[in-house]
């Protein structure tokens, strides 16, 4: 795919590690057959719960480890109950229904204000049985790619 070399599993020594690579297991690996928009060539990712920073998870490419994002389970957000994933989308990763699915949203951080937003227009749907995933782009343009996380969590 690309010629860029990939460093081995070393976190930068200047920055505290968000998770310990030693704890990563096979069950944390999810295949994204279509890649992610912007990273179409990357198909193998880790999804790891950040035990020290609940309820965040880390999504990290195994092919280019610099490609690391924070994600959050959509059901933790109030808006989650309003978001339906169409069947024609989740069937792309062989889901019959959503009972074997987890849905996450990708977070973005404004490094100056430290404000977090979530991309609820394009959630990640994970087939937990087959460990495959897909980033759905929903038709509804009322769903923000920068949904504020202030007072956004279900109580």
């Amino acid at each position, binding site marked *: 795919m690309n010629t860029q070399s990939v460093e081995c599993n070393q976190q930068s020594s200047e920055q505290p590690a968000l998770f310990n690579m030693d704890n990563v297991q096979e069950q944390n690996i999810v295949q994204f057959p279509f890649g992610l*928009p912007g990273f179409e060539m990357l198909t193998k990712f880790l999804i790891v719960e950040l035990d020290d*920073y609940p309820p965040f998870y880390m999504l990290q490419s195994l092919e280019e480890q610099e490609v690391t994002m924070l994600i959050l389970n959509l059901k933790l957000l109030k808006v989650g109950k309003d978001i339906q994933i169409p069947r024609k989308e989740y069937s792309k990763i062989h889901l019959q229904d959503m009972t074997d699915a987890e849905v996450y949203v990708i977070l973005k951080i404004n490094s100056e204000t430290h404000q977090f937003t979530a991309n609820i227009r394009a959630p990640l749907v994970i087939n937990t049985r087959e460990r495959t995933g897909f980033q759905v782009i929903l038709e509804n*343009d009322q769903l923000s790619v920068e949904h504020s996380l202030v007072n*956004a969590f279900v109580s």
Partner: protein
Amino acid sequence: MLVLTRKSGESIRIGNNITITVLDNSSSQIKLGIQAPTDIPIHRSEVYERIQQENRQAVLSGTVQPQMLKDLFKTDPPPGTP
């Protein structure tokens, strides 16, 4: 870029299993019908490009410190967070 001229109701075929039909071009917009296997993602280009841009911006840079994750919940703690 390959350029083809089509009338309303006519179609083009891409590969073995993708057909794009011009349904209506009577107004300033053109309506297209797309038949493709369900495992082929189809998006409006500007929407797809926006999501590409969002994903690239979501990649954590070295400026993101773990403390920022803790700070997020100072005002808005989710359930189960001390």
